[in-house]
Every structure is written in C-alpha cells, then in structure tokens.
C-alpha cells in the first residue's frame, strides 16, 4: 500500500475498497451469470454480435446493485486484516476449473463433427458432463464466496443479506418457478444451475473464440488484482493517465540505447551499457537512478491504461480501474489479451502467456496427486476428502496407473504358463493307482480344466462385459448427476421450456 494510513485519500478508501472487492465475485460470475443474457441475444437477433458488450452491460448492472448495497451497509467492516493472497488462491482455483471445463467443451465441439449418428444421446451426455462441471464450479464459487467477500469474515450478520442479494441477482434473470421456499443460497444455485445447463447447450453454437474470450477476460481480470494495489483508489483526475500502444507493450525491450540502438528490458541495464559508449556515462550522476534527481518537486502520479477497447483497465471504460506500473500493464495485457504460448512441459495442458506464471506453475505441477472426479487436484488428501464431503456426486478419482496395473491379478501369466505346461506332462501314476479307468478319466478332466484358466486371458472376455456405452467417453458418465443435482435445481427438468435453449441448439446444429 502506497499511502500512509492518515493520507487524505484514505477517507474515501473504505467504501471503494469494498466496491472493488464486491466486484470480484461478480466478475467471476461471468462464467455463470454474466454470459447468460448474452445468449438470449445470441439466439434470437444476431449471432455475430460479440458477447463483450453484453458482459460489460451486465457488469454495470451488477455493480450498480453492489453500489447501492454498499451505501446501505454500515462501514463497520474492518477489512485491514483481509488477506489478498487467499483470495488470489481462490480465484486461481476457479480459473483453473473454468479452464478444465473449457477444454472439455473444446473436446465436445471437436467431437460434434465426428459423431453425427446419434446426436440426441450425445447431446444429453455432453450436457450432463458439462452441467456436472458447471455445478461444481458454481458450488465452489459459493463456497469460496465466503473468503472472496471480506465482509463475511468480520460480521456474520452481513453474510446473509449479501447472499440474499446474490440470490435476487440470480433470480432476476430467471422467471419464477425456482422453488419459493428454499434458502436464498440454494436459490442462487438453482437459478445458476439451470442457466448454466442452457449455456452448456449453447456452447457449440458460440464460436470457440467467444467462449474463450469471455473466460479469459474474467479470469485475468481477477488475476490482475495481484498487480494492481487493491487499496488504490485515487479520485479521477488526481493522476495522469498514460496509455501505451500494443506494440510498445509487447516489445521485448523498452529501453533503447540512443547511440547503438540496442534494446534493454531495464533502465539500469541500459545505464550499465552506456558506460561503454564513453566516459561521460561513467559519472555517478549518469549512473544514478534518473528519478531521484527530480524527487524534490512533487510530480503528478502516473497511472496506466490498457489499450484494449472494452477492457475494464481501458480508460474509456465506465468503471475504469487504472494499472499502477508498466509491469502491471505488460502482465495484464499479455495475460488477458494475448495467446498463451507457454505450455507446461510437465502436464502439457496448462498454458500461460507470462513466463513467470509458467515458472510458478511448474514449481507445483505434478505435486497435486489427490484427484477428484471433477478434475480438481489437491496436494493434500484431507483437502480432497473435505471437498468430496462438501459436494454431492463428487468421487475420489483413482490414479490411472493403478487402474492399469490391476486389470487382473498378478498371477495370470504364471497360471497360463502352468496350465500350458501341464498339458504336455504325462503323470505316471497309472501303475500305482488301483482303478486305471478312473485315472484316465481324471486325466481327461485335467486336460479339460486346462482350458479354464487360459480362457481367462483371451482378450475377448473383456469385451463380453456390457458396459452400456461406457466407452463412449473418456470417463464414465456422471450417472448420478441428476440425482446429485436435484438439490441444486429442483426444477432441472423445467429449464428446457423456460428458455427454450435446447431445441434451438439442435436446430441450428
């Protein structure tokens, strides 16, 4: 935090601090709430319209609500001890989950082209899968909402109204019929859940770009909180806004030697380099930080704007939030508006646009060995079990290597070998045994039984099992997803005619 506690702007600090934090969940809700209205527009008037304006629109709506609420709420919440790191953890967790879902949708979109035979069945199954994932995200969102909302930590009493408002918020988008007597939080889940189900139907409609765009914006916005000081809240006009061009941001070097033109990332490196161009650059004055010289006169504080139109960090945005340093701008721009070109070499799935992010990820990649069926990984077993205890329908996932290793008991090979060999051996008990005929009979029996263990190894036997289409998908379908959802959305069967999303998607397909 840059300002001392008694600094004049601090008077304004609290409410706006809240506001900013209040927005976090709303930003994240893009995945669930925010996108929904955009679909309606998508479906009916035009399919070319981008979803971004809608998002912003929605965003403001939400923000207004929050603002209104914030005015009402007494400023009793002391949020100084609020830890941004836990919030960041939560946010990045959500980001990760959304990524996974995104991949899944990608996969489905890819498959759509291949299998045209039984579209209904497939759609249903895909829907199930996506719904399951989305529910988990929403459930996670709600559970993390507690830590996302700083006020919750301090006064429990404020939690209820806030969730209530969330419920309202969700409810306002959906026609009634969600179940009136239910708890507010459940209501929120209901409405979200049903809408998300719609969304999952539509995902194939929207171009990949659209989805990705939405997600990427939201998640990187959230991540940027780390760069931007959350206490930052200067009155408009009290600072100078600088906007770098896209090329400038993406340029590898920002400091160039005036003499030879060589580029540097850091000014200090440039100054070291300049020493080679002559003695005049070797003086302490020339080597010192240039800012320090002009430190005496108060300069206007500099803040930065993102050049991307429509971005919240863009100065033309209605709720513009400036970026603090050039580094923030760079990271923000790369994370939010650029391709993710760095892939993790360990898992080959996670991609990053900032190399530092990749390095951070690689430090922890592969350490999460406790897996949930929903794809979430945990570094600790008890965390996984806490997660499973919390959500319905989530199952611990058994690591693949174990599954492979135990297709059958270990003595298979041995058994077949033994039985094969027995076939060739002639036991010489005929002489001692009293009833010769009986022994021959026995020998015959033995030969017959040889077939038994060997038949076990025939690969055909594995095929004979009827798995009811278990091979259709890389993982078994969420069989009880419906039942597990029943608590989330009692009206889950209604959603089709509520918005009429499914038939549309089928037709357009």
């Amino acid at each position: 935090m840059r300002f001392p506690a008694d600094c004049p702007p601090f008077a304004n600090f609290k409410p706006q601090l809240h506001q900013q934090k209040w927005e976090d969940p709303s930003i994240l809700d893009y995945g669930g709430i925010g996108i929904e209205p955009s679909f309606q527009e998508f479906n009916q008037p035009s399919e070319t319209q981008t979803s971004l304006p809608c998002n912003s629109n929605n965003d403001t709506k939400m923000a207004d609500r929050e603002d209104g609420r914030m005015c009402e709420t007494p400023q009793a919440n002391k949020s100084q001890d609020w830890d941004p790191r836990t919030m960041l953890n939560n946010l990045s967790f959500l980001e990760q989950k959304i990524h996974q879902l995104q991949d899944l949708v990608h996969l489905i979109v890819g498959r759509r082209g291949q299998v045209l035979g039984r579209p209904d069945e497939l759609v249903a199954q895909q829907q199930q899968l996506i719904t399951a994932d989305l529910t988990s995200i929403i459930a996670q969102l709600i559970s993390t909402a507690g830590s996302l909302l700083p006020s919750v930590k301090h006064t429990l009493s404020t939690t209820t109204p806030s969730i209530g408002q969330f419920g309202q918020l969700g409810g306002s988008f959906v026609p009634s019929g969600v179940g009136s007597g239910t708890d507010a939080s459940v209501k929120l889940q209901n409405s979200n859940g049903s809408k998300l189900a719609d969304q999952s139907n539509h995902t194939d409609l929207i171009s990949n770009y659209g989805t990705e765009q939405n997600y990427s914006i939201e998640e990187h916005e959230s991540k940027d909180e780390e760069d931007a000081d959350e206490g930052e809240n200067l009155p408009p006009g009290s600072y100078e806004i600088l906007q770098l061009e896209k090329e400038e941001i993406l340029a590898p070097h920002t400091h160039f030697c005036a003499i030879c033109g060589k580029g540097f990332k850091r000014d200090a490196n440039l100054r070291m380099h300049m020493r080679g161009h002559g003695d005049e650059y070797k003086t302490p004055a020339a080597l010192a930080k240039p800012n320090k010289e002009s430190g005496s006169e108060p300069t206007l504080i500099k803040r930065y704007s993102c050049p991307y139109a429509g971005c919240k960090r863009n100065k033309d945005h209605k709720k513009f939030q400036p970026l603090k340093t050039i580094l923030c701008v760079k990271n923000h721009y790369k994370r939010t508006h650029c391709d993710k070109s760095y892939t993790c070499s360990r898992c080959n799935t996670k991609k990053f646009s900032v190399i530092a992010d990749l390095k951070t990820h690689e430090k922890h990649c592969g350490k999460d060995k406790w897996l949930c069926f929903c794809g979430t990984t945990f570094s600790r077993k008890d965390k996984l079990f806490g997660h499973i205890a919390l959500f319905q329908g989530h199952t611990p996932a058994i690591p693949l290597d174990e599954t492979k290793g135990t297709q059958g008991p270990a003595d298979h090979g041995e058994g077949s070998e033994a039985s094969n060999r027995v076939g060739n051996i002639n036991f010489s008990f005929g002489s001692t045994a009293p009833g010769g005929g009986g022994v021959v009979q026995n020998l015959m029996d033995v030969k017959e039984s040889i077939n038994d263990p060997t038949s076990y190894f025939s690969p055909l036997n594995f095929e004979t099992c009827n798995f009811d289409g278990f091979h259709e998908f890389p993982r078994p379908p969420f069989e009880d997803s419906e039942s597990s959802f029943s608590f989330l959305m009692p009206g889950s069967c209604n959603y089709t005619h509520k918005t009429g999303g499914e038939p549309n998607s089928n037709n357009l397909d």
Partner: protein
Amino acid sequence: MKRQRTIVTFNSNMNNNNNHLFHFLSEEIIFIILDFLNQNPIDKKAFSLACKSFYAIEAKHRKKLKPLRSEHIPKVLNRYPHVSHIDLTLCPRITDTSLTTISNACMSSLRSIDLSGSNCFSGTGLLSLAVNCKNLVEINLSNATELRDSAVAALAEAKNLEKLWLGRCKQITDMGVGCIAVGCRKLRLISLKWCPGVGDLGVGLLAVKCKDIRSLDLSYLPITDKCLPSIFKLQYLEDLVLEGCFGIDDDSLSGLKHGCKSLKKLDISSCQNITHIGLSSLTSGSGSGRLSRANHIVTWLSVTLALADSLKKLPMLQSIKLDDCPVTYAGLKAIGNWCASLRELSLSKCAEVTDESLSSLLTKHKDLRKLDITCCRKITYASIDHITNSCTALTSLRMESCTLVPREAFVLIGQRCQFLEEIDITDNEVDDEGLKSICRCSNLSSLKLGICLNITDEGVANIGMCCSKLVELDLYRCTGISDSGISAVASGCPGLEMINIAYSAIAVGCKQLAKLDIKKCSSIDDAGMIPLAHFSQNLRQINLSYSSVSDVGLLSLASISCLQSLTILHLKGLSPSGLAAALLACRGLTKVKLQATFKTLLPQALFEHLEARGCVFQWRDKFFRAELDPQCWKIQLEDIMQMQ
C-alpha cells in the same frame, strides 16, 4: 423330513400311474412344500429327480445357489433362472469371466453375492456386476487381498448396495472407501475389518455420505478421534465395532458432544487406550440421550466398581462380554446388583473370577441364557452348583479348562439346565456319569469334549442315544474312545456336520458330515476311507495326518466332489504319484497341507497347475514325533502353563 420324503415318493409314484393326477397341485402349493425342504439339500435333489415337471418346478423355485465349481456356473445359472442369492465361497477360483457370466445371466434378479475367499477377480468383473445387476444389495468381498481401489471404485456403481463386507481387503485405501461412500449411498452395513489402508478420512467420509448406516465394523483400523464425531452423528447406527482401534482413547470419547442414541451394540474390546473413564463419558454424559438404548457392550476394561456403575446407567443392557479383563470382586458384585437382568455374560479368561464373586454376580441375573466362564481356573463345585441353581434357562455354557471343577459337578448341569444347546467342557474332569447326565439335554447341538480323558465308549454311546440334534461333536484327544463309541454317535446323530476324533479311534452313516479330523488315528486305514467316500459326499475338510491311510484310500476320497481342504502329514503309505493323482482328481481343492518333502518329489508344473485352479499349498516341515501317553501329555502341558 423323512415324512416329506415319503410324500415325494408317493407323488412320483402317482405320477407314474396317472400323468394328470399331479396337475391338481398348483405351482404355488408345490413351492410351499419346497419351502419346507430347505434344511436338507439332499431332499431337494431327490425331489427334482422325481419327474420332469418336478425338475422344472424346483428349478423355478430355487433362490439360493452355492456352487462348488466355477466352471459349472453357466450351466447352473441356465437351469435356475430365478436365483437371487449366490454364494461362491466354495468355488476355489472366481475370475472376472465368471463374474461377467453371472452378471449377464442374472441381471437385475441378483440380490446378494458372496465372493469371500476368492481373490482372483478384479474391477472388471465387479464393474459388470455393478452395472448389470441393478438390484444387488449385498456383496461380500472379504479376503480379496489383491483387490485395489480401482476395483472398489467400479463397485461403487452399484447404487443400491446395502451391505458390504470388505474384511481383510488389505490393498484398499481411503480413496476406494471414498468412492464407495459417494456411490453407494444406501449402505446399511459395512465391514472394514483389517483394512489397514483405511483411516480417518475414508471412515469419516463414509459417515458423512451414507446416512443410513446401521452397522459399522471398524476393527483394527488406524482411526483416531477425528472420524468419531461424524460416526456418532449417524442417526440410525445400531452396531459399532471398534475392536482393536488403538488410536481411540478416553479423550477422544469424552470429547464427543453427541451421544449416539440409536446405538445398541458397542464393541470396544482390545482398545488398549480406552478405560472406564472413556466408557463412562459415553454412558453418562448429558441427559438421557447417550447410548441409552445400548444393550450389548463388549469391552476390554478392568472391571472395577467404577465401570460397573457407569454401565449401570444403561437400562437396556442385555449382554456384556468382559473377555480377558482384570476383574475385581467389588466390580462383579456391583454388576450382580443391577436391576436389569442380563441375557448374555462372558467372563472368558478372566483369571480373577472366584466362586464368591461369580455367585454374587449371578444371584440376580436369573434370566441368563449364555454364560462363558472359559479358563476361570479358580472356580470349583460351588460355582457350578450356584450357576445351575439360579440360571436354569441357560442355553449355552462354555467352561473350557475350569480345572478345579470336580467330576460330580457335571451331573448337576444335566439335572438342572435342561435347555442347554451348546456345551463346551473341553479339558475338564467330566466322566461317563457326568456325560450321561449332560446327554439329557435333548436340544444339544454342539458338544465339545476335547481332552476329557475320563470319557469312554460307554459315555459316548449316551450321546448317540439321546442327542439326535447334534451337529458338532469334538472328541479331540479323547483317548478312551474307540470305534464302538463313534459308530453309536454316527447312528444316533444323523445331522452331524463336524466331528473331531483326532487322536482317538470311523463309521458310516453321517451323510451331512462336513468336517472330519482323524489326525493320529493310527488304526484308521483305507478300509475306513472307502465307505467314508461313498457315504459322506458333503465332506469339505479332512485331516488324515498320522493315520494309516495310503494311496488307495486317498484316491477314493478324491471322489468326494465337495472336498476343499486336505491335510496330509506323515502318511506312511503315501507315494508321490498317488498323491499327485489324488490332487489332480480333487477339482474343488482350495487348501492342501503337505509335508515339505513332497515339494521336491512332485513336478513343479503340477503345483503350478493346481495353484492356477485356485488351490493354496501349505508346506509343513514337522518331524515325526512318537505319541506320548495321554496322561503324560497333559502333565507336560500343565507344566508349560505353570512356567508361563
């Protein structure tokens, strides 16, 4: 039973005379008749063989199957399409293929399956069971030591599962149990005994997800107080076994806020770290809620006044097992003063029990049905007098090794306790007179007379005359018994299933015989084996060690298709090739104990083949020891015991 068999013959005779007469009996009526034939499988077999229609009806009627060989399963299932319970404990090797066949044949009619004892299957078979048999309610996977989490996860697809036994599934961890907890929400009974990979997390999740659990066996699990709160929140929990859970101590019990109101049976035996303090915190606690309905407690605590007082608060208590507990006179007397009468009491191996404390304990508990005073070595005639006087309704009395009880005392048992069904007087001074008196208990089904050296053929003949319901007879080391005694038993007790006549003198007529131990019956030879093989086709387990049986006898035994367990040590007349032939002929063998010398005498491939069939070999390397005189053996044993 005999009467029913005559009916069958009668009907089939009629059937021969007039084909249509039989049609007057509707299928339902015949089903009801068949219901009465359940006790004896041979009767049912005879029924189905009477005629074609009987055969068809019996095939329709049968619900339970206990096949002997897995290779016959497809045919058997074809014949009995309505089977809902399959017990595969007798099949030596159940593979995934067998399970797939079963699941495809039975589909949703299958309700229960018992796979305990077979560990050749994996997740593939279980998955096909779980997916195809939607109504599967019970599954027993005990002893599937190779079963891994992935297989258990496949089982979790069986959503309707209510009872699950996973005892000794050593490879299973919390992850597998977690899958079960999430998948099988309707579980009512689960046994995780001896699954050392399962800990707090798995058990805790189980308690959180499966709210209907009635019975929970957590014996010998490394659980601690972390999972206890969620277990005690299970609102229907009735039976909780925490035997040998060393991680649970007094503090974890006293820290529990909720008592489990529904709990009826609590087993905390061998929990070293629980004392009466922990138990009393469970029993007293706040208000009436805690354990108020518990009627069965098994503990391992020292019985002091404090414990007796804490248990007194349980108004419904009916049964206490205090096995191996250090008891005090005051404690036992306090139990004796409870107003509620106990039904079952076990003081087995409580060395401190005296005549005085036992009689003060039993004065008020006149309704006692089961009493176990095994190895209470201080009690004498006075105790037996008191027991038989006050507890006349006893059905079970176990008093192995009560060495100070004189032979006259056993006469009292027979005189006063007429309802006894189970008596264990192994290693006692009982003589023919006492045995004669005991045989007056006409309901007797289990009688153990091992190491009773004073018994002769005369006494044993009484058993044959009076105890027609006897199922189990143990005559281990009763050296005074010869063929005449045993044949009297065999002719008088048609239902005998288990007999141990090791170290003594075999006879024909026990068709139900399942276990036979003729260890050291040196006078038994091939001549005895041939009628045995012919008549006792239900024999499962036989010990032939040290007897005079040779190749011929062994091969004749091989014709018994049920034979599963064979112990052959020190058979003088046995040749390697004879043994090989017998082993190959016994298709159902699961366990063979052999002398280590045979390992080299027989081809390795033979053993490999037999092991592939599901047979386990145990090699013993015992030296042949000349048998001591029985009295001498007993003295030696007592010497050893005193030294300890």
